[in-house]
């Protein structure tokens, strides 16, 4: 059942699991990806399969991404939280889940843990991104993406690099996403989050030492109670794909600790 109807949208999901040796229900892990050119495949090809040896793993293409529906509007963090909660309901998962969030998926995870603390057991965040003070004041439209870890130059470079590929469906789709939906407006309107001290579940955060959002790393460590921060040397914002093996090891250790 790869395409599921939730919160009024068709959302693409993937479920990975292995039989539990003792027949006990496994921990439930939900993995959320980054913005625009990202989708659930970045988890699928890195740590989803190893984690599925010890947990039931649920991967989601957030609205507008991957093989999910791309509505014209509704791209706030809260809209994404609503989608994920609707999926949890659809799947009948009532116990608290372990949320794994990469970049934009990190802020969706944080917001879900804040709004629905009863549904989240722990947070495992890679390069988590979120609006900070001064966000709305100096932000021109295209910069909204940069602020969420997707530098406009990087997007343009990426699109140019893929432009000669006649069939580059992802490039076309990304361009449509940026120009024909309210994504940028919605992100621009995000307010700085003031509720980090209210996060009540165990939280592990990883960032690359060369990341352009080290301020977020330090803010998480300072404000989320008990947040454990790991800085990985010589890595950028693309930490998940640069250090798949390391993150797999950390994820398995983390799940062992919090389950």
């Amino acid at each position, binding site marked *: 059942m790869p395409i599921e109807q939730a919160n009024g949208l068709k959302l693409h999901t*993937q479920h990975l699991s292995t039989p539990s040796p003792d027949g006990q229900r496994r921990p439930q892990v939900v993995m959320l990806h980054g913005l625009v050119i990202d989708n659930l495949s970045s988890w699928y090809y890195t740590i989803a399969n*190893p984690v599925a040896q010890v947990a039931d793993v649920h991967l989601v293409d957030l609205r507008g991404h991957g093989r999910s529906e791309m509505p014209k509007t509704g791209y706030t963090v809260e809209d994404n939280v609503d989608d994920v909660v609707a999926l949890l309901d659809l799947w009948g998962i009532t116990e608290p889940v372990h949320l794994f969030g990469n970049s934009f998926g990190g802020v969706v995870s944080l917001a879900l843990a804040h709004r629905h603390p009863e549904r989240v057991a722990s947070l495992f965040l890679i390069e988590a991104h979120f609006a900070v003070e001064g966000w709305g004041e100096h932000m021109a439209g295209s910069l909204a993406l940069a602020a969420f870890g997707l530098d406009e130059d990087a997007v343009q470079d990426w699109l140019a690099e893929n432009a000669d590929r006649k069939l580059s*469906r992802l490039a076309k789709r990304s361009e449509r996403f940026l120009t024909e939906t309210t994504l940028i407006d919605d992100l621009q309107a995000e307010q700085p989050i003031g509720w980090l001290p209210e996060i009540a579940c165990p939280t592990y955060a990883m960032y690359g030492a060369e990341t352009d959002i080290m301020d977020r790393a330090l803010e998480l460590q300072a404000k989320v109670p008990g947040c454990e921060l790991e800085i990985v040397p010589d890595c950028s914002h693309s930490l998940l794909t640069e250090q798949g093996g390391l993150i797999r090891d950390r994820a398995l250790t983390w799940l062992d600790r919090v389950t």
Partner: protein
Amino acid sequence: MPETVTPERVLAQLEEMLVEVIGDDLLLDGPLTMETSFDQDLQLESIEFVALSEKLLETYGEQVDFVGWLAEMELDDIIALTVGQLVEFVATNASASGA
């Protein structure tokens, strides 16, 4: 009586699955061959590869552990995969399990 899983049959089934994932554009440059590369020729996006994985699972069952096979590869190896490599993997494992 299980059907024999020949490479030719897998190739034909794979073509059907890819058309379902990508659409008829797949065949613009001619039919699928063993030499077709997923990246260079088909320009298969990684998310489409995920959808293909799911179709392989539906078609051949868990004995053909495509996801486990991919998990052993580096990203570069996955990108460089040819249709022939995948067909060989499926045919070998499906035959071994009597699928």
